[in-house]
Every structure is written in structure tokens, then in C-alpha cells.
């Protein structure tokens, strides 16, 4: 049996149970990889930032046990931005009102069910018939109406908070403007403007932006489009979702007061691989972000040692869909590869960006992400190796 390395994110009972053994081999994890990737190479799935623990699941039950450990909390109650926070405030208020109604009404129901249950020794005959009561009816019409009135007030307050007007970019605004294009099944990011400076580069799947300080908010204004079907942009810790609808322009705003990675995914069913249209948001410090911007703005690096690889890449159909700025490859249908190696993942977050995974992806994308629009091109081993070597230099 081949060993598949599967970096896990899971700690706790499962790890404890499995770590007893000397060698950690992933059976259940490997089962996944085995059946998914038939060509015999090993795979790494993307590592979540927080932990990097080898994990294994020897049987379904230990897989079950892994569920108790949470390594990353995408909960809507774990907000990292002011807008997500104000939704939490609204949620808590709504939940509290609902809980109150629940306790009162369910209480009365259970009381009625217990108290007025037919007793075996009750005399025959019917209980008193009560046909209704106007004052009571008015009372229980007005009471919910008041609650509704109150809810409308708090909803409008939150609504105006989380849907701000998008300003025009100007110098010194610390604001980033990005156009997001939803595509089956990945996100394209067109960086338009930062701090009043015009940007002009395109990247995919991993959205970088700078962290906000207490004094300086650094907001990200997203313009949302779709190139094919409806999608939805959802990163629960940063904001509610907004749909990307073909033929329509939507906007949303992101902001984060925390550094690090935030995960999310497409939330509107968009076809076969909807489940694997994953989003990673990377919030950098302002200096890191500036460096990242500067790097992304550059055309692709020229590296003489991979000249043969570059030629192989340009000679194949890759260039019909993919773009590598600074070369004749100018396709605008598939992810921009100019700085492919600056991304952590491939296939919109499905697998980690390693040369092995890249080779496997090029060999047969359908084996990894069935239905993805990139076919297997049946390249020779040599061509494939040359192309992977070339792409690996695109830092």
C-alpha cells in the first residue's frame, strides 16, 4: 500500500488514539486520496494555518471521533470585522426574543397538555364551551405587533450599518477596490485601486488585503460579477454573503481587525463543483500587503534555467485559457498564472500548491475536481515535467 501523507488539522481524542502507533499512515484519509487520485502519487491537501498535526483515521469510528475537535471556527458568532460584529449583535437580540417567546408559548402548551389531560375518573359530559373573547384576541394581536415594530427598528439600524455606500477611490483613503468575478468553480480577483493608486493585475482564489487598525480602517470594496451562473461570496467571519449574478453588479465591503487567514466558500449552488468553490482571504499587515502588491504588479519572472519549460508551456494549448503576464500567454478564461507560486492552494483551495500536486493536476484535473473546465491534455511525461518546472518558478 502506498502511503499518503495527509496533513490534518485535528487534535484531541483522535490524535491521542492514533498517536499510540509509531508510524502514522492515513487509511481513511488515504482512502479518500486513493480513490480520488488513481495515478499513484502522493497528495497533500491544503494545510489550515492553525495546526499542522498528522492525523489518521484507522476506521470510521476514529473518523467519527475526530469530529469533536474544531481546528478552525468559521462560526458567524466569531466575527473579525465590524459588519460581522453588528450582525452578531442583531442575531443575539433576535435569538433572545425568540427564546423568550419559545419558553412562554411552549410552556403554556405543555401546561395545557398536562393540566387538561382527560382523567379516567372524570364525570361524563363536555367541559364548558368558550367561543372566544374580543379583549383577549386584541391583546394577542397587539403584543406580537409591538415585537414586530421593535424588530423592524433594530433591523433597519443593522441594515444601514452593514450596507455602506461605496465611495470613489481617492489618495489617502486606505481603501482597496477589487472586482470579483465568479466562475465555475473559482473566484477571479481584479485588483483595481489601493489608497488612490491604480493597480492592474489579476489573481485567483486567494484574496489578500491589509488589516485595519483602530485608528485607520482599511476597507475593501468588492464589486461582484459573474461570468457564467449565480454564485455567492461568503466568508462568515468577515461579512454576510452577497450573490454574484450574471448581468448584475453587486457590491460588498470587507474589513478585518485580525491578521491571518479566513475561509469561506461559494454559497449559491452553481453546478457540479459548487462544494469546492472555496475562498481564502489572507489579511496581511500593511507592510506585508504592500510587498505582496508590489510583487503581484510585476510581470512574470524570467528564469533562464527553465527556458525549455516556458517554451513547452507556450507551445501547448495552456495559453488559450491562462495568462502569464510578460509572455504571449494571454488567455482570460482560466486563473491567471503570473504569480502562481505566491498562492498556497490549487483548484480553488482544494489541494495544497506543491509541485507534486501541480503535476497531478496537470496530468488529470478531472481526477481531482471532476467537472472542472480544464481537461486532461495527455501530455507526455517530459512535457509535463518541463511545464511544472516552469510554473514552479512563477513566484
Amino acid at each position, binding site marked *: 500500500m502506498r502511503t499518503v501523507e495527509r496533513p*490534518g488539522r485535528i487534535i484531541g481524542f483522535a490524535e491521542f488514539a492514533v498517536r499510540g502507533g509509531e508510524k502514522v499512515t492515513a487509511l481513511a484519509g488515504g482512502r479518500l486520496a486513493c480513490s480520488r487520485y488513481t495515478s499513484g502519487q502522493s497528495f497533500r491537501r491544503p494545510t489550515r494555518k492553525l495546526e499542522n498535526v498528522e492525523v489518521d483515521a484507522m476506521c470510521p469510528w476514529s473518523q*467519527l471521533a*475526530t*469530529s*469533536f475537535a474544531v*481546528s*478552525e*471556527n*468559521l*462560526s458567524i*458568532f466569531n466575527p473579525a470585522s465590524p459588519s460581522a460584529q453588528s450582525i452578531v449583535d442583531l*442575531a443575539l437580540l*433576535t435569538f433572545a*426574543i*425568540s427564546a423568550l*417567546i*419559545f419558553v412562554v408559548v411552549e410552556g403554556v402548551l405543555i401546561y395545557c*397538555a398536562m393540566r*387538561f389531560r*382527560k382523567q379516567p375518573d372524570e364525570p361524563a359530559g*363536555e*367541559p*364548558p*364551551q*368558550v*367561543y*372566544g373573547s374580543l379583549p*383577549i*384576541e386584541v391583546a*394577542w394581536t397587539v403584543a*406580537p405587533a409591538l*415585537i*414586530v415594530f421593535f*424588530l*423592524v427598528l*433594530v*433591523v*433597519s439600524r443593522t441594515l444601514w*450599518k*452593514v450596507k455602506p455606500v461605496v465611495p470613489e477611490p481617492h489618495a489617502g483613503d486606505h481603501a482597496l477596490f477589487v472586482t470579483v468575478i465568479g466562475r465555475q468553480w473559482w473566484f477571479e480577483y481584479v485588483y483595481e485601486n489601493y489608497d488612490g493608486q491604480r493597480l492592474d493585475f489579476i489573481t485567483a482564489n486567494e484574496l489578500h488585503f491589509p488589516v485595519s487598525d483602530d485608528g485607520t480602517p482599511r476597507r475593501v470594496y468588492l464589486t461582484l460579477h459573474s461570468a*457564467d*451562473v*449565480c454564485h455567492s461570496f*461568503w466568508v462568515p467571519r468577515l*461579512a*454576510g*454573503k452577497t*450573490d454574484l*449574478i*450574471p*448581468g448584475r453588479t453587486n*457590491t460588498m465591503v470587507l474589513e478585518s481587525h485580525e491578521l491571518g487567514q479566513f475561509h469561506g466558500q461559494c*454559497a*449559491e*449552488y452553481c*453546478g*457540479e463543483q*459548487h*462544494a469546492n468553490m472555496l475562498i481564502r482571504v489572507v489579511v496581511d499587515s500593511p507592510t506585508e500587503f504592500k510587498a505582496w502588491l508590489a510583487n503581484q504588479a510585476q510581470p512574470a519572472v524570467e528564469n533562464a534555467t527553465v527556458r525549455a519549460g516556458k517554451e513547452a508551456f507556450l507551445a501547448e494549448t495552456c495559453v488559450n485559457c491562462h495568462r502569464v503576464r510578460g509572455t504571449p500567454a494571454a488567455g482570460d478564461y482560466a486563473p491567471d498564472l503570473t504569480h502562481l507560486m505566491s498562492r498556497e492552494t490549487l483548484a480553488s483551495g482544494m489541494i495544497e500548491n506543491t509541485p507534486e500536486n501541480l503535476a497531478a493536476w496537470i496530468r488529470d484535473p478531472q481526477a481531482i475536481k471532476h*467537472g472542472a473546465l480544464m481537461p486532461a491534455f495527455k501530455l507526455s511525461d517530459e512535457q509535463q515535467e518541463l511545464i511544472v518546472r516552469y510554473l514552479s518558478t512563477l513566484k
Partner: protein
Amino acid sequence: MSTVEPTGDFELARAPGQAPAGLGLASALHAWTTTVDHKKLGIMYVLMSLVFLVVGGCEALLMRWQLFYPRNEVLSPDVFNQLFTMHGTTMVFFVGMPILIGMGNYLVPLMIGARDMAFPRLNAFGFWITLLGGLLVYFSFATGGAPALGWFAYAPLTETTFARSPATDFWALGLLIAGVGTIGAAVNFIATTLGMRAPGMTMRKLPFFVWTMLWTSMQMLLAIPPLTAALVMVLFDRQLGANFFDVQNGGSAYLWQHLFWFFGHPEVYILILPVFGFVSEVIPVFSRKVLFGYEFMAAATMAIAFIAMGVWAHHMFCVGMSKTLDLYFALATFLVSIPTGIKFFNWLATMYGGRINFASPMLFSFGFLSLFLIGGLTGIMLGAAPLDFQLSDSYFVVGHFHWVLIGGTLFGTFAGIYYWYPKVTGRMMSERLAKWHFWLLYIGFIVTFGPMHISGMLGMPRRIYTYDAGYGWEIWNQAATIGALIQTPSYAIFVYNLVGSLWKGKPAGDDPWDAWTLEWTTTSPPPPYNFEEIPTVHSRRPLWDLKHPEDPDWQYE
């Protein structure tokens, strides 16, 4: 009383289901397939729905199996997507609506003292075309796979660019013609209720279930045609090269969402209003008290039917509407809670001071009350627009609408089936099996759909065929699957009880529950002509008046 259409001499000549000697099965089959009798059609509607319920349930079990583990590989993504499309389509169009229409068909003429529906042939047409619609939708599997669209089939996924196989055409065509059947049924219910009531039964004296069926029918009449139009547009796009939803050629994906939800939201009330009717019949009889606040209940039903026509875009809070529109649709959504609250409080007031007998119909009504409340409250959370930006299209929504449609519609429908089964068959169902059915379903239901609210709040979107480990979603998905396995035997017990009681059930007599509406005056099962003599009615509870001549209801109404 208006004239009654003859239901065919051939049928009137003998008792229901009884074949002339020597012909046997073929003749029974002939009798059932050619019948225009509202009772036989009602039974066939309900049986058809139960078959589809089992099919849709199996689809759900397969999906729960796939989601049991993160990155599980039992089903391929495409198959999973087909399953949730078919599950949703089946449950809404071929279980929910036909089972309620079927029960309405059986009960409305009996409850208003009529001999049949106003248009018996239209009635038969409606049933057969609904069945044909369901079969057409399932025929899509024969094209190599069902459509993978989701039940609300957001454009442009339905365009030939994205859905190349004819599966989508069969799906659209099936829903279209089933919708025609539904519109026919709606017209029939309205005409029957308005024109064929027994002497003395004014609109203010309608049995409550008939009142809810009337308003359900009004909603069907208003809501189904937009869907029909939208489906015709899809078929034009696919077959004739129109571009209604083809964005590249100037169509609008957004238009479909409005058209669909203009149907889709009233649809939810179509699926719940008749159930309000069931429990409004069951709770008084089993609490031995008159329905509290009939007029307010009736007004609340009307209010729900009206408000429900103006809330559709709360399914679309995330499409980027203006804040004003968001606020309007949030407000309208909250408004529904007022009449719904009125109903709820009146049911409680009916139970209060009663002598409650927890026989199976009341047990399921109790299940309905205790669960539907929660579905209503999560509905308020989803109606709060900014909160919906987080919860929309997450598993929270899946939990919410199953809570309403199973905890509400299905529990209430079971209450109705246990209540009227003795009337339909002349036999009682087993109370012991009914209790098993109830508790397995009640517990299994909570274990299945409760956790979905949590995984939704943890960021799990709906309609994903798989998910990564490590977000804390596994445990909740595993619980949901286990809950589904707890529920499964409850349905088997129900079917066993339903079929077995035909032979083993105690004879029911005309009026086993000591009830108050007209259907209980005739024999069980009723003769093809329903009543030997059309009764005259003086109050909302004609049988109360008969049983208590010293204290009749009409004194108080």
C-alpha cells in the same frame, strides 16, 4: 343547493370498490382509473403522494450517507446534485401539494354536505396530469441522469449551455403540467365551496378546514401561473432559442429569481394553510371544546394568504437589493408572524380548560404545535435581513424549512390521516403503532434537523456534496444522519399501520371520535353519493347541535 353532476351511473349503481362478480381485478382497476368520484380521487392523490414520499425519503437517506464523513465518496458530485434537486422537487410538488389537495378532495364535499366536487371530470383530469407530471420529472433519469439544478433551478443553470441533457426539459415539462392540474384543483375547490354548501351553511359557518382550503386555493390560483409562465420561458429558451434567461444574449438571471419566488413563497403557505385546517378540526374534537375565536382564526387565515403574496423577495436578500427593499421585505415577513401568532394562541386557548384525549390525531397535533413554533421562530431570524445575509443558503435554512415542512406540514398531515382514516376505510388504525410512529418520528426529526441549524451557523453552505474536516461540521452532520436513521422505521411503521388496519383494524362506526362536522353523519366509508339526504345546517358544529339539543351552538354564533 346547486345541482350535483352525476358521477357516472355505473358507479352509483354499486358500493365503492366493489366489482361485478366474475371480473375481479381488471374491473376494479377500470373502476379506479375511470372514476370521477372525489373520494376515490382523493385516496389516489394521497397514495401517490405517499409513494413519492418514500422515493424522496430514499433520496434524502443517500445524501445523508454521503455527508456522514467529510470528503466521503459514496456519491459522485453530479449524482449528489441530482439527488437534492429531485428530493426538493418531489417533496414540494409531488408529496406536499398533492397530499393536501387529495385530503381536501376527499373532505371538502363531505364537510360541506355536497355529493361531489363542482367539476368531477376536471378533478380526475387534475389527478392524472399531476401523476403524469411526476412521472415525467422522474423520466429524466432515463436521459442519463436527473437535472442537477436545485429545486429552485436558478437561471442560467437551466440554459442549454449549462444543462445540456434533456433532463431539464423533462423536469420543466413535468412541473408545468402538474401545475396545470393544481390550478384545476384550485378552481374546483373555490367553485365547490362557494356554490355547493348544504342548506343553512353560510360562509360564516364553514368548517374551519374548508375555510383554509378555500384560501389555499386562492393562493394556488395566484401563485402557480407565474411559475407556469417561467417554466414556459425556460422551455422556450431551451427548445426555441429564446433568451429570457440567457444573460449573454440580453436575458436576465435575476428575472427568474423574482418569478420563481413569487410562486415559491406563497407555495410555502399553500403547504401549511390546509394543515392549519387539519389541526383546527382535530384540537377542538380531542379537547372537547369549540374552536376558540373562530372569526379571528378565519381572519388570520385570510391575512396570511394576503401577506404571503408580498414577501417573496425575503428569499433573495443576498441578491443585492436596495436597503429600502430589504427593509420592506423584512417588515412584510415579520407581519406574517402576527396572524400566525393569533392562530397559535387560539389553539392553545382551545386546549385550555378542555378534557384532552391524546389519541393519535391529537398526539400528532401536539407534535405539530410544539415543533411548528420553533420553525416559526427561526423564520423570524431569517426574516431579519442582515442576519439572513449570514444564514441564507446555509444549513440553517435547510434546518428551518424542514422544521416547518416536516414539523409543521407532515406532523399536521399525519394528524389528519389518523383522524379521518376511520371515515375513509371504516376501520380504526392501531393506536399502539401510532405511538411508535409518533415518538420515533419526533425524536428522529429533532436529531436530524436540529443539528443543521448549528452547522449552518458554523458556516456550512447548503447543497455541497462534501466538506472538509476541521470546521466542526462533522459531528452535526453525523448526528443528522443518525437522526434520519431513527426516522426511517417510523415511516415503515406508518405504512404498515395504514395497510394492516384495513384488515385488522377495529370497525370504526360512523362517528368514532364523537366529532362535530358533517362528514361524521354519513357511513364509514361514505357511499358514492355521500349523503342519503342532504343535511341542513344551523351552526359551525351541526353534530354538536344534534347531540346537545338543549344547548345548541347556533345560540352563540
